[in-house]
């Protein structure tokens, strides 16, 4: 009897073990291959729009691919998982965010950060962790040798500025310019680059020392002095989407009749809500996908983006490129590049594909050699917009080589 009980116990234990093993084994067979992509950027405060658009664009593209079973790399489909962190435009938070993405989440490809200070702060972390990041900061040293892990995700102010100023000189008769910038590293650098470009083109620079502190809400006292200089053009260097409409409104209320422009991306809804008719004629670098130039794939993306974000944002036309080019480059480089960015970098050198977001048959590739001595910039189209009747209207479309 004792022996029978013992046998029964062993038999039952054995059944339980086999059942458990089956569940675990079949579980591992059903496990999806997941490709994690990080998004690190400013998602709160006056510049929240910049980081949030990065996040929503990545989530939109990921959703569209995941609905088709994932993105194919090396014959295997990967589900795209977006891990987003808000760095609040604070370098300390950007560093801790980057550490979390690379070391805890094991991510090697990060979209962001959004400004010079946060992008430079994460540089050592990204390089030490073997990660490639796609900032929207303009500091040239990020993208120039010996550094090679950063890829600029948009058109830089020093690329757009000279083209915009030249256009305004030729088409609108602008002869003089004043600058005003937020008192932070990124906008001040953009201002300095803009002043250099303006002087090179032969514009009279009436003033360039005027600044305002982050958090300023009343721009009347600040811009009174700029307006009184009587320039044909006032450039709002590095202006955040929340500050631009207040500056425009104050300038117009002070009687300024000239042109106002910036080389950063703006939000038309905020411009309309806060500045109203004062935004009319405002020139900015727009999203790289206006209705006139976008492809059916881009239309599909825009519809899905509106569902995720609640509304379209013109900047999304530029920021849609980041995740797309990461995935396509990984496909070219092979699945080993998912965890080895050196293979990714090799693939970047000769990468080229038809731009999926443009109607016209134009290539999408990495550019920027003329500025950084290496191709460390996504070749997004350069679209310059003007606000007309409460909407962005394309002034002209260009490109950077």
């Amino acid at each position, binding site marked *: 009897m004792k022996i029978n009980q013992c046998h029964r116990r062993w038999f039952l234990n054995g059944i339980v073990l086999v059942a458990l093993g089956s569940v675990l084994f079949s579980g591992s067979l059903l496990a999806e291959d997941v490709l994690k992509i990080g998004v690190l950027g400013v998602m709160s405060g006056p510049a929240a729009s910049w980081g949030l658009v990065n996040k929503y664009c990545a989530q939109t593209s990921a959703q569209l691919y995941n609905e088709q079973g994932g993105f194919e790399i090396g014959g295997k489909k990967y589900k795209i998982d977006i891990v987003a962190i808000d760095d609040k435009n604070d370098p300390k938070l950007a560093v801790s965010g980057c550490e979390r993405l690379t070391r805890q989440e094991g991510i090697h490809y990060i979209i962001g950060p959004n400004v010079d200070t946060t992008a430079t702060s994460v540089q050592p972390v990204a390089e030490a962790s073997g990660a490639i990041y796609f900032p929207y900061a303009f500091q040239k040293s990020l993208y120039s040798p010996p550094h090679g892990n950063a890829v600029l995700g948009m058109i830089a102010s020093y690329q757009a500025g000279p083209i915009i100023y030249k256009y305004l000189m030729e088409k609108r008769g602008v002869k003089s310019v004043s600058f005003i910038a937020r008192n932070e590293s990124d906008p001040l650098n953009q201002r300095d680059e803009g002043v250099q470009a303006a002087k090179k083109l032969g514009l009279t620079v009436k003033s360039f020392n005027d600044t305002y502190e982050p958090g300023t*809400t009343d721009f*009347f*006292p600040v811009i*009174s002095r700029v307006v009184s200089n009587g320039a044909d053009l006032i450039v709002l260097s590095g202006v955040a989407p929340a500050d631009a409409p207040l500056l425009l409104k104050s300038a117009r209320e002070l*009687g300024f009749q000239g042109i106002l422009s910036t080389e950063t991306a703006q939000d038309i809804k905020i411009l309309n809500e806060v500045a109203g008719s004062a935004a009319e004629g405002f020139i900015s670098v727009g999203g790289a996908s206006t209705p006139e130039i976008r492809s059916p794939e881009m239309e599909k993306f825009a519809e899905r983006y509106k569902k995720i974000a609640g509304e379209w944002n013109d900047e999304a036309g530029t920021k849609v490129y980041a995740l797309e080019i990461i995935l396509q480059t990984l496909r070219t480089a092979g699945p080993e590049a998912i965890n080895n960015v050196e293979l990714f970098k090799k693939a970047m050198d000769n990468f080229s594909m038809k731009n999926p977001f443009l109607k016209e048959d134009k290539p999408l590739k990495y550019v920027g050699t003329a500025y950084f001595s290496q191709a460390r910039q996504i070749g997004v189209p350069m679209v310059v917009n003007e606000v007309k009747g409460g909407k962005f209207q394309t002034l002209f479309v260009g490109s950077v080589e």
Partner: protein
Amino acid sequence: MQQVLLNGVVLAVNYALIALGITLIFSIMNILNFAHGQMFMIGGFVVYYSYGLFRLNYFASLVAVVAVLGVIGWCFETFFFRRMRKMATREENAMLLAVGTALLLENLALSFFGEKQRGVPPVVSGVFKIGDAFLPAGRLLVMVLALILIVGLLLFVQYTKLGRALRALAQDREVTYLMGVNVDRVAALGFALGAALAGLAGGLLMTVFGINSGVGTVYSIKAFIMIMIGGAGIVPGAILGAVVLGFAEAIGYALLPGSVTYLLIFVGLIVFLLFRPQGLMGKPWG
């Protein structure tokens, strides 16, 4: 220079409304309301939704601001600060609680309202030219309404029963209690009034500057500067502090780079407080 002086006047009146609310709360409760800027911000959002989105009459939306912020202020005093006063042995605990309420409101606002800058259609449009200076009609309206509210508050505090009770409470809580005043009720109403004033300032300035959920801290800091200059808990002092700060900003921005203006304001404040820590109109401590 005309524009600079006009900017100073406009700023001074706007800031006076912000400062009055925080000084009122300090006078009756001896607590610096760190959430003052956040209450300002919520007032702005109430106007955004009621006037901007639901198209209520602007003045009706200001009434809504008073109601919402009054309830928030009353709840904070009744459920948080009154309990803290009874339990805590150190004054710093109330200050920490005040900081906590500021963080609570800011994060709630971020969750409910989002992070984007919001604006509303102008209540009035047009720009007046006074000599060589420009004064937008919107700013003039804000200035007039702010002046009416400031005068109304001063009259209320001076001539009404509740106003006298508030002044008595500010002078001596125990004696006020002994005089038969329901101290808890008056304190709660006083806090509600201070919160409503902060919200009204937000609702008024919202039409000029727009609002976003991150502006609270900036306005709280400016409110602290004003009451430090004028004297904490002194209503005329708050107005004086607002005038000083308004003109300092206007003149500073006109003559100096933006970054230097506030650097000098803070350095000046530190030096001033070394010689007169109670502010211009405050009484020496102790």
